[in-house]
């Protein structure tokens, strides 16, 4: 063998040949990969087609002989003797036919090498059964997976890794010699192909024209700063495709015209400053598509007319100062859609007429000073929708007639001075709904007839001086409801005549109720005939004899009552 290995050329008669086999074993090749590692160039070359370099065990005692054998050791052919092994027998890739390694992502199979101190910054040429391509890489020192669980193909064929960039001419030569002839152009599914390849710093312009599914294809490629204009014209599903590509600063105008699923597609691409006007006209699912793209300062007028799911779509896009008038007429789920977009100063009059779920939709958009009269007539869940919109000074008369959950909807809207007479007739939960709306000076007579939970509903609305005769007939929880409404002096009679529960713990503490008002409240509670309740009031006036008489009645029914003046 040494003689063959050192030969520069081989002939059969007068015909030059480029490879010589002994049975199925390749014993000589005109191409010498070791030339790329001359002069002490660091790197490795593994080729699963060279069966003599494969062993079933990590120690190299038992050679791989047949398809189906596990591979515990693969010998480096670069001359650097950095062999790849897997000491855990349950995690060894399987030798496949045609010659390649099958590493199951489901049991985390892989071989590993130890990258020396300083790591390698250079080139990787990786051949799989589906295609061969060359990449720029930056691999830190330590363990590195070869033929690992995420492989750009079904099986691993060969890899060349070299410290120090190779020229295009060199990579062309290497690709030709390690490829099985496939070039990705027939691949349909690219799911997980380059997933978690944190070492890839540049990605080649491969042919992905047949690809329909790109789910998680580049998920976690956190060293990529740019991406080529690949052909994705057949792509329908892009779920998580570039998720957590945290260093991408720009994105090309790829063809996404067939795409329907864009969920998580650019999730956590925190370095993107702008986004191209891609064709998303067939997109239905945009859930979390641009989640946490914290550097986007603008967003294009993409076609979202088919979109139904916008949950978390622009969550924490905290540098967006404006938002385009996109078509969201088919959207049903807007939960957390613009959550924490805290640089938005205005919001367009988008079509949300089909929207049912608006929970947290504009939560913490604390630079919005106004809000448009959007159509929310189908909305049922408004919980926390505008919570922490601390710069809103007014709010429009939106249609909330279908709304059932209004919990925390306008919590901490500190600057709202007035509130419209919205339709809350189907609302059941009003917990914290207007809590800490310090600037509200008056409150409208909204329909709360279905409301059961009023826990902390108007807590710390410290500018309210009077309160309307709301319908509390379904109410069961009024704990802390008007707590710290420090200016509240006037409260009407008969408000609680028909309540369903006596839970008024701390309901009126730290208020400024007049004597008539506290009397009104106590007498109304007596009228309710509820027993065994709890009522707390502090601040303002003590009850009169009328109120004290009501307290006596309540206590006779098992109530615990504490009021200003200590009666």
């Amino acid at each position, binding site marked *: 063998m040494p003689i063959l290995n050192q030969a520069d050329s081989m002939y059969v008669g007068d015909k030059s040949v480029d490879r010589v086999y002994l049975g199925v074993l390749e014993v000589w090749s005109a191409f010498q990969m070791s030339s790329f590692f001359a002069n002490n160039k660091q790197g490795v070359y593994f080729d699963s087609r060279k069966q003599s370099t494969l062993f079933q065990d990590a120690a190299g005692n038992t050679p791989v002989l047949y398809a*189906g054998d596990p591979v515990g050791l693969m010998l480096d052919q670069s001359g650097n003797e950095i062999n790849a092994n897997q000491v*855990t027998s*349950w995690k*060894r890739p399987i030798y496949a036919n045609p010659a390649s390694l099958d590493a199951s992502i489901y049991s985390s199979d892989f071989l590993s090498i130890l990258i020396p101190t300083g790591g390698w910054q250079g080139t990787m040429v990786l051949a799989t059964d589906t295609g061969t391509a060359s990449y720029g890489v930056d691999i830190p020192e330590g363990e590195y997976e070869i033929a690992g669980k995420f492989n750009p193909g079904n099986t691993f064929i060969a890899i060349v890794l070299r410290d120090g960039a190779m020229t295009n001419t060199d990579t062309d030569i290497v690709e030709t010699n390690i490829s099985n002839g496939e070039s990705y152009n027939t691949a349909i599914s690219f799911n997980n192909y380059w997933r978690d390849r944190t070492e890839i710093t540049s990605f080649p312009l491969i042919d992905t024209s047949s690809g329909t599914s790109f789910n998680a294809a580049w998920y976690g490629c956190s060293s990529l700063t740019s991406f080529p204009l690949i052909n994705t014209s057949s792509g329908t599903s892009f779920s998580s495709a570039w998720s957590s590509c945290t260093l991408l600063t720009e994105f090309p105008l790829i063809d996404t015209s067939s795409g329907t699923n864009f969920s998580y597609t650019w999730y956590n691409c925190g370095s993107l400053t702008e986004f191209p006007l891609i064709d998303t006209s067939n997109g239905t699912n945009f859930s979390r598509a641009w989640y946490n793209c914290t550097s986007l300062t603008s967003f294009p007028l993409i076609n979202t007319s088919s979109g139904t799911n916008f949950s978390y779509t622009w969550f924490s896009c905290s540098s967006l100062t404006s938002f385009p008038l996109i078509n969201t007429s088919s959207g049903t789920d807007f939960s957390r859609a613009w959550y924490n977009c805290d640089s938005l100063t205005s919001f367009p009059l988008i079509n949300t007429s089909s929207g049912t779920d608006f929970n947290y939709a504009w939560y913490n958009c604390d630079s919005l000073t106004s809000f448009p009269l959007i159509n929310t007539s189908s909305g049922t869940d408004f919980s926390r929708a505008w919570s922490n919109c601390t710069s809103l000074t007014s709010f429009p008369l939106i249609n909330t007639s279908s709304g059932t959950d209004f919990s925390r909807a306008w919590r901490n809207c500190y600057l709202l001075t007035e509130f419209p007479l919205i339709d809350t007739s189907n609302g059941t939960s009003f917990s914290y709904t207007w809590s800490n709306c310090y600037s509200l000076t008056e409150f409208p007579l909204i329909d709360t007839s279905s409301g059961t939970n009023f826990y902390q509903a108007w807590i710390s609305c410290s500018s309210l001086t009077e309160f309307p005769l709301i319908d509390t007939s379904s109410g069961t929880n009024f704990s802390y409801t008007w707590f710290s409404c420090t200016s509240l002096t006037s409260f009407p009679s008969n408000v609680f005549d028909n309540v369903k529960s006596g839970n008024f713990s701390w309901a009126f503490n730290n208020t400024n109720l007049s004597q008539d008002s506290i009397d009104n409240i106590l007498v109304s509670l007596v009228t309710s005939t509820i027993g065994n309740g709890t009522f707390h009031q502090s601040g303002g006036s003590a009850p009169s004899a009328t109120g004290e008489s009501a307290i006596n009645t309540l206590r006779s029914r098992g109530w615990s009552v504490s009021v200003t003046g200590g009666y």
Partner: protein
Amino acid sequence: MTTKYQQRATIVAPESLIADANSLALALGESAADDKTFNTASYQDAQGNLYAVASTVAKPIFAQMAGQPLKAPDHSPDMDLVAATRAQGMLQINNGIANPDVIAVILGDNTENAKDHIEALGLTPIPQEDEL
């Protein structure tokens, strides 16, 4: 001639039994590093119980070894045989879906794959944060 690894064995260890299952993998395996076979519990059943999974090709003797009294292999003479035997007693081979009280195994032909075994055992990968 063909490979001696004619079968594929997929074993799922409930989260609470990972340590014992690793001892069993060491006793049945070919390497002193096989006590690291089961790592993170990254699969779940319909009830949300968590499991670690290992799958590989195996020789037909695997099933026989799994049913015999265990002995410490040459590569790990000081291994915890008590834990391995405890895990062995919890093996349930080709007998229904995974549950937290057993170490479920599917032993099939080597042409079968880990994904199908895991699905047959009623398990799915635990979604990552951005796959929820």
